[in-house]
């Protein structure tokens, strides 16, 4: 998939749409900021100095300090290292598991399909993110619990997507052609069917990451997600809410970070989708 995109991009047959380029730029900016930002910023994100709490923006603290006197800009940037990897991971495991289950259901049908489809129905009968909240609670708050709980519920979307794609693809002639050549079904599924379902899966993954980062921050906002003192945007919004009247940016800025990241990734997904379809 990536090779194909790279190959096509190299050939320059069709330039990436503007949407995708904007999205890619935003994503790259976040990743670079996440990698290099903490090295460039002189402050320790967890170092409190309560005597210097709630300072307005200044030459030293460009975005001021938070309620414990920590440099707010540093925490905004360091949170990239928390929110992004967890969101990407929380969507990655369900992608792997969901795609595998969906592909098996779609390819082999019969009992496999029935079992997977009924399990998916069951999960979807739940208000899934409430279920996720409750699962995280049952497992104990934290990143690992979040990823596990996200996997339990989010595989369904990937499974449905993969099942549909595989069912569409398996009736195509190249799959039959592969069967005639005597390749085992397992090999056909993994090397001929699935690679063709990957672009759509990857696009779905990107929008799922957006969802996951929002859900993660929501849980942290509710106090069930990432625990203090770790810098996390949802948690920072919750901690900034008491100071809305005097220090509105404490609640506003982390939300903007989330929003711009989500918008960037959504644009990238949309743009790639348009590009692959055209």
């Amino acid at each position: 998939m990536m090779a194909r995109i790279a190959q096509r991009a190299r050939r320059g047959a069709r330039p990436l749409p503007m949407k995708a380029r904007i999205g890619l730029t935003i994503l790259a900016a976040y990743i670079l900021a996440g990698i290099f930002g903490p090295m460039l910023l002189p402050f320790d994100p967890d170092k409190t100095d309560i005597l210097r709490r709630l300072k307005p923006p200044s030459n030293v603290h460009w975005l001021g300090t938070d309620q414990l006197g920590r440099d707010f800009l540093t925490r905004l940037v360091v949170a990239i290292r928390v929110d992004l990897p967890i969101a990407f991971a929380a969507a990655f495991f369900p992608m792997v598991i969901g795609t595998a289950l969906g592909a098996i259901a779609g390819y082999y049908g019969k009992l496999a399909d029935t079992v997977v489809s009924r399990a998916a129905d069951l999960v979807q009968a739940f208000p899934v993110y409430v279920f996720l909240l409750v699962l995280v609670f049952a497992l104990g708050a934290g990143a690992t619990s979040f990823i596990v709980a996200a996997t339990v519920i989010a595989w369904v979307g990937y499974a449905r997507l993969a099942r549909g794609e595989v069912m569409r693809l398996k009736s195509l002639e190249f799959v039959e052609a592969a069967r005639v050549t005597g390749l085992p079904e397992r090999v056909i599924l993994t090397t001929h069917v699935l690679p063709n379902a990957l672009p759509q899966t990857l696009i779905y993954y990107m929008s799922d990451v957006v969802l996951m980062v929002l859900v993660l921050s929501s849980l942290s906002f509710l106090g069930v997600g990432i625990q203090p003192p770790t810098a996390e945007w949802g948690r920072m919004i919750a901690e900034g809410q008491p100071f809305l009247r005097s220090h509105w940016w404490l609640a506003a800025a982390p939300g903007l970070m989330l929003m711009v990241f989500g918008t960037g990734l959504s644009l990238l997904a949309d743009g790639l989708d348009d590009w692959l379809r055209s």
Partner: protein
Amino acid sequence: MTRSRYILKRLLQTIPLIAGIMVLVMLLLHVVPGDPARAIGGMAASDETVEQIREELGLNRSFVAQYIAYVGNALQGDLGISTRSRQPVTEIIGERLAPTLWLLTAGMILSIVLASAVSVLAARNKDRAADYALGGLTVIGLSMPAYWVGIMLLLLVALPTGAFPISGFGKGFWGHLNAIILPALTFAIAISPVMIRALRAKLVALYRNDFVMMSRAVGLSESTILARHLSRHAALVLITMVSVQVGPMIFVGVVIEKTFALPGLGQALVNAVAQRDFPVVQGITLTTALFVTFVHLGADIFTSFVNPRTVLE
């Protein structure tokens, strides 16, 4: 298949689903790492306390026995007793239901209104500036956390104007209505982008349709075309979206209740989670899951009337 047979079949399908939901709700207790009774009591609970919790939750018995007891009690309207307040869970749910229903109803109406308006506007101006602008706003809307939207509305609307309560549910009908405006608006901003995407796509396809072209050719006004030809298709899309989105909607509702301190089921759930009050968590989870199931069911039945073709498949 006739419609009544379809509805009957659909009703019967919910029975195993609800049974499955209950299994999952029961299983919640069992995914707690280690000893669930110990986890609920807190690491510090005495052995007697833990034993008592185990007794209360029926953890001494086999899973099947627990399940049968839970389902049996649930059918009689008994979802257990809060380990914290000793209040029956059904009573807690009853007390907390009103704000949640207000929020969901008002939020849903506002979402549909917002989604319809934006979609029509975007579809009618397809590939023009307005469409792109609205499309951009939709993407941004998809990327904003609901609680943050709520806080920003507090900051930008409630604080400067002073016209809306910052939290709480108000008193009396008008008080409730006033208190629900900003939460419902937050809800709509969070929920409508997904609806807009689906609805705009459908409307764009419909506007390309021959009969719409024809209607235009014979001089029907745009609003007549909209009302006569498109509203039924649009309604179908919206019903489907409500059905698909009901799960996320409930989560958004929980988050909004917390943001605006609405004393609804969502807040009760979050509080119960904070207090490790398992029967309440189970009860509310079950309630919301049943709600989702019935919304799905209702949407399918509704669709079978508006679009009989679905019955035939």
